[in-house]
C-alpha cells in the first residue's frame, strides 16, 4: 500500500440509504441561477433577513468570498441542496456571484484567464 492510499480512501460510494435531502428546499432540486462549483460568492452589504430559514441563514453566513463547493463542504450539505439555497439568495439580491468561464466565454476571455492563472502559478 502506497502512502497516497491513506489519503485516497474517500472515493467510496456510501451504502444506499433513504434520505429526504431536499426537504429544506421545499422539494426543489434545481436552481434557476447558474452556480458553477468554483464560482466565488459575495454577500451584499447590509440587510437583516428574519424571513430566511435556518439552512439558508447558515449558507448566507458562510458564503462570503467562498466558492459554491466550499460552502457545500463547510455547511455539510450536498452540492445540489446548496445550489438551490444559494440560488434563492442570489435571486433575492442578498448574494452576488462573481464571473467564471462559461460556455459562452470568448476565446479572448479564456486566454486572459489562462494567462493570469499561469502567472499566478509560476509565482505561487
Amino acid at each position, binding site marked *: 500500500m502506497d*502512502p497516497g492510499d491513506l*489519503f485516497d480512501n474517500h*472515493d*467510496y460510494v456510501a451504502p444506499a440509504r433513504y434520505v429526504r435531502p431536499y426537504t429544506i428546499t421545499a422539494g426543489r432540486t434545481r436552481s434557476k441561477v447558474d452556480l458553477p*462549483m468554483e464560482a466565488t460568492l459575495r454577500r451584499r452589504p447590509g440587510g437583516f433577513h428574519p424571513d430566511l430559514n435556518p439552512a439558508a441563514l447558515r449558507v448566507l453566513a458562510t458564503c462570503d468570498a467562498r466558492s459554491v463547493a466550499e460552502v457545500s463542504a463547510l455547511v455539510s450539505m*450536498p452540492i445540489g441542496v446548496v445550489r438551490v439555497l444559494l440560488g434563492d439568495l442570489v435571486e433575492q439580491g442578498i448574494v452576488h456571484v462573481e464571473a467564471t*468561464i462559461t460556455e459562452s466565454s470568448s476565446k479572448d476571455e479564456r486566454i486572459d484567464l*489562462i494567462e493570469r492563472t499561469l502567472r499566478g*502559478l509560476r509565482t505561487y
Partner: protein
Amino acid sequence: MDYAPTSATRRAASTKIVVAGGFGVGKTTLVGSVSEIVPLRTEALVTNESEGVDDLDAVPTKATTTVAMDFGRLTLAEDLVLYLFGTPGQRRFWFMWDDLCLGAIGAIVLVDTNRLDDSFSPLDYFESKGLPFIVAVNEFDGTQRYSLEEVANALALPPHVPIISVDARDRASVKQALVRVTEYALERLIQPLSVNAN
C-alpha cells in the same frame, strides 16, 4: 451574453483544474500538496436508478447514495482563485464530470503504473469532451518503473498529449504539473488540433 458585461467587471474571479484517476492513486495527496487549505470534501447525491446527480425530483423514498469529491484552493492573485477538484475515475461517475469540467482550464489524469486500466475511463471522457488534459505518472517511491514513453504507448495516448512524472507529495512537483496543464490548455486554445491530427 445577455447582460452586456464589461471585461473589467466580468473578469473571471475563479477557475478550476480537475484531477482524475483511479482509487488510491493519490489525487487527494496531490491536491493537499499545493492547497492553501486542508482539502475539503463536498458530496453530490446520486440516485441508484438514473445515476443522475441531484435529480430526485420529489421522489423522497428513492434510494440514494452520495459520492464525495475532495478539493483544494490556491489563491493566485488578489482577484483570482484556482480550485483543484479530485474526482473518482470510474465510468459510473461520469455524470458528475460534466458539471466539474464545464469551465475548467483542463485536467490532470493521475496514473499509477500498477493500475493503468483505471486511467482509461478518464482519458476517454476528456478526449470525448475536448477538455485539454495531461497525463501525470505518480512516482511515489522515486523509482521509475517504466519510461514515460512506455506508459504513453500502453495508454495509447495521442502524440499531442503531454505526459510527465509527478510526485504527488511534493509541492514543487505538483506545481510543475499544474503549470504544464495550464500551458497545454493555452497551446490548444491558440492552436486547436486539426481534424486530421492523429
